[in-house]
């Protein structure tokens, strides 16, 4: 019931979002390439790069929203999937450099020559082919998420515990990728890219192409999420979010429901990372920093979790704010970000989109049927006992059990 209401009411909004994304995928490159530099309609190169980056972040936030907003799994490790996708793409781009590196070695990337590696490690083979790299961009984060989720969900690690071990996962990966003998460039990561699919990565036509690809990927991500959420499976997903034990007692395998969402979400995050790397020109272990993953959560929270459009708006707004602050008032950015975390959780628990929806009295049908904007109902059942005697009473502390 609720799912159909939700899907029905949101259809027009989703359609508009997809249309807008596809439109900017076409228009922005045209305005960048075809319109002369002096014209008022010209989109400068740096804007293309910047917005392209924001759209990658938006895809990452959307991926997180699929598991957090719709399934109640707060992953503090989504940055790891993003970075793994980025590394897979980075490895392809490193292999494309060929003998144009500083040391001119046709097979080995510069950092390997520098570290006295004699041959390419086995896990680098195949990355000279784009199709293989593209497969790995999806397969590596997907498999990691599948293995991680397989163990975690089957042993019913939920709520805060799951958040903490996802954080431990990205922290462990960060430490691992910082090591030089891992074979991923250590501290410096992968950089100095030259070509992608034979096109010069610095050229503005290539950059416009990447921008178009990112916008299209985001539109596709929105479509996939919408399909998942609107389907019968989507209702199951929300049932697990709101009352996991009850869903299990009704005969559904809650762990499988969660595992599917977690894996799909990780693949989306991996694709976002892969599109991000050629646009910013570097990938290093700093992307695994647990702080980055937590920042993704705030993008989704600002826009409105449990909505499809919200995370996209949140990611773009917060990152635009970050770009402005780090340019104008660099020392105040962390104050602003910290304040945003507090303000959103205290005063705007359903985010911009969720709050806007609630203030629309003209659509009564939706107001009663909404499932995605009442925060207490979203989170509380997931980690405290399903029918806690205190539920609904004044908020009070409970032991973490």
């Amino acid at each position, binding site marked *: 019931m609720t799912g159909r209401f939700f899907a029905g009411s949101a259809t027009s909004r989703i359609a508009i979002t997809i249309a807008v994304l596809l439109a900017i995928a076409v228009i922005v490159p045209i305005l960048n390439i075809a319109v002369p530099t002096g014209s008022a309609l010209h989109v400068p190169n740096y804007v293309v790069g910047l917005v392209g980056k924001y759209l990658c972040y938006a895809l990452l936030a959307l991926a997180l929203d699929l598991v957090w907003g719709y399934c109640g799994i707060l992953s503090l490790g989504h940055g790891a999937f993003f970075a793994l996708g980025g590394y897979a793409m980075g490895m392809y781009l490193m292999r494309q450099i060929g003998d144009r590196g500083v040391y001119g070695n046709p097979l080995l990337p510069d950092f390997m020559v520098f570290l006295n590696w004699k041959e390419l490690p086995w896990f680098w083979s195949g990355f000279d082919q784009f199709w293989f790299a593209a497969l790995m961009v999806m397969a590596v984060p997907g498999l990691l998420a599948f293995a991680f989720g397989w163990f975690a969900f089957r042993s019913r690690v939920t709520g805060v515990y799951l958040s903490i071990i996802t954080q431990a996962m990205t922290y462990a990966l960060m430490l*691992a990728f910082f090591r030089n003998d891992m074979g991923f460039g250590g501290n410096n990561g992968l950089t100095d890219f030259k070509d992608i699919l034979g096109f010069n990565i610095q050229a503005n036509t290539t950059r416009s192409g990447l921008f178009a690809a990112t916008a299209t990927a985001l539109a596709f991500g929105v479509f996939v999420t919408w399909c998942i959420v609107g389907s019968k499976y989507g209702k199951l997903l929300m049932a697990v979010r709101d009352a996991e034990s009850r869903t299990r007692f009704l005969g559904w395998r809650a762990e499988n429901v969660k595992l599917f969402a977690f894996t799909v979400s990780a693949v989306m995050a991996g694709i976002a990372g892969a599109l991000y790397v050629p646009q910013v020109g570097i990938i290093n272990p700093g992307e695994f920093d647990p702080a980055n993953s*937590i920042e993704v959560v705030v993008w989704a929270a600002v826009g409105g979790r449990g909505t499809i459009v919200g995370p996209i708006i949140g990611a773009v707004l917060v990152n635009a704010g970050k770009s402005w602050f780090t340019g104008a008032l660099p020392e105040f950015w962390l104050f602003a970000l910290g304040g945003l975390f507090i303000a959103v959780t205290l005063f705007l628990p359903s985010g911009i989109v969720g709050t806007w929806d609630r203030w629309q009295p003209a659509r009564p049908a939706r107001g009663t049927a909404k499932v995605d904007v009442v925060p207490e109902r979203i989170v*509380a059942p997931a980690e405290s006992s399903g029918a806690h005697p205190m539920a609904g009473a004044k908020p009070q502390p409970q032991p973490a059990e």
Partner: protein
Amino acid sequence: MGFLRKVVAACLIVAATLHGAAADEADLRLLVAKFAAAKNFQATEAVVRELGATGDPAVEKLLTALSQGGLYVRKGDDAVFVGDETGQDVQLRDPLNGAPAGVAAKADLSKVKVNNALRRVIRDALGGLTLGSKDPAVRLAAADTMFRNPDPAAIAALDTAIAGEDVTSVKTRLEQARAAAVLLSDLGEADKMTAIDTLSARADQDALSQLTRFHTSAQGALRDAAGAAVALIHQRLALWQVAQNVWYGISLGSVLLLAAIGLAITFGVMGVINMAHGEMVMLGAYTTFVVQQAIRALAPNLFDWSLAVALPMAFLVAGAVGLAIERGIIRFLYGRPLETLLATWGVSLILQQAVRTIFGPTNQEVGTPPWMSGSLQLGQLAITWNRLCIVVFCLAVFALLLWVMKRTRWGLQMRAVTQNRRMAASMGIRTPWVDALTFALGSGIAGIAGVALSQIDNVSPNFGQGYIIDSFMVVVFGGVGNLWGTFVGAMSLGILNKFLEPYAGAVLGKIIVLVLIILFIQKRPRGLFALKGRAVEA
């Protein structure tokens, strides 16, 4: 009368000593003058032996100069000098007290000649001189030097020194030095057997290298004995290595425990995910810095006590900030742990940036009081005082906290509110205040931890970030809501980490520990010591 007698006696003693010293010096000068008459190596050697036999440290410079060919006799009056050649001239100095004695042309002087045999005699005499020193520390150092460079020719000197030695520790070292020399000498098998026993009793890296060297060259029974001794020492050293690892592990474990113990209260007892916990530790460290700056400026002689002053200050500062966070933010978010996580993360960002704005982004130097520097040697174990202090301090904080939770009225109220809030409220406990004070206590403990950790880590705005993930791991691993679980968790993670480090390296060891914790949580999702009963989620 008694007093007068004492004064007189003292005067007499002083006079006698002065007289004795003067007489000694006169005697020495007579001896030194004999160098002028010594026309061949044998005669010179006799003089050197006589000088060595005096055991007077004053002849040390003279003998050293002689062995380097820097002892001269003036042709005019047969006076003996120590000299430094500068071109055609020689700078002369008095042979005993080193006072400058003018310049003379090279042609007017004759050098006292030395050969290698004589140099060896001089070296022995010098060794005997330091071995005969009045300061036990000098004798100990001499014994150690002779142990590391064993020389069969020194055995006689060592025997004399051993016979005259009355400090047990020095005597043991002298015997060990003698044993090392005996192994290289051509003495009989029985002597060498005793020497092997002496060395294997010492059982350290130096003794091991001496015995290994001997083992490769020895024959027959001696070879077997040496081999057995080498094996024994290897075994002992391996045991010491284990002890060393355990100590390092306990040391790391107590650091983890200090960082996690406040979290064990806020997260474990109250169920609040406080991501700003690391920043409470950082505030404690910065409080230490500020207190030390103030003490340096106002009362420098109190610097030894700066940490004692900083402890209550850090508790108050971090506790007050914690109270403000609880009243201002967290109390609106009870029952929504994931939102609490996000909001406290925001608080942590703000606190970090605030500290960065006030104190700057660079590391601040926090001084260590003199009584905390240096180290303690326990067998083969080197224990630094500051690590030992942290271990002891950590145990004290843990015991205090346990006492507060189990024995005080406040602790009783805290536990009552945790177990059944409504029942506790019906009994007249003001639950909101208990919540606020519990959170303040956890934060204050984190501040205290910051004082201790400022002694071993760089105090920067990112100080707390390094501890937050480890702290959560410790609490989750140990079992939420259980202080003993946190203790066992911290110690076992610390020791496990230090045992992995030699094989895997520091970073890989840490990664392995993280992966093991993730796997462990799959097996026991509620930690080592999970709470049982109706409170546990279905």
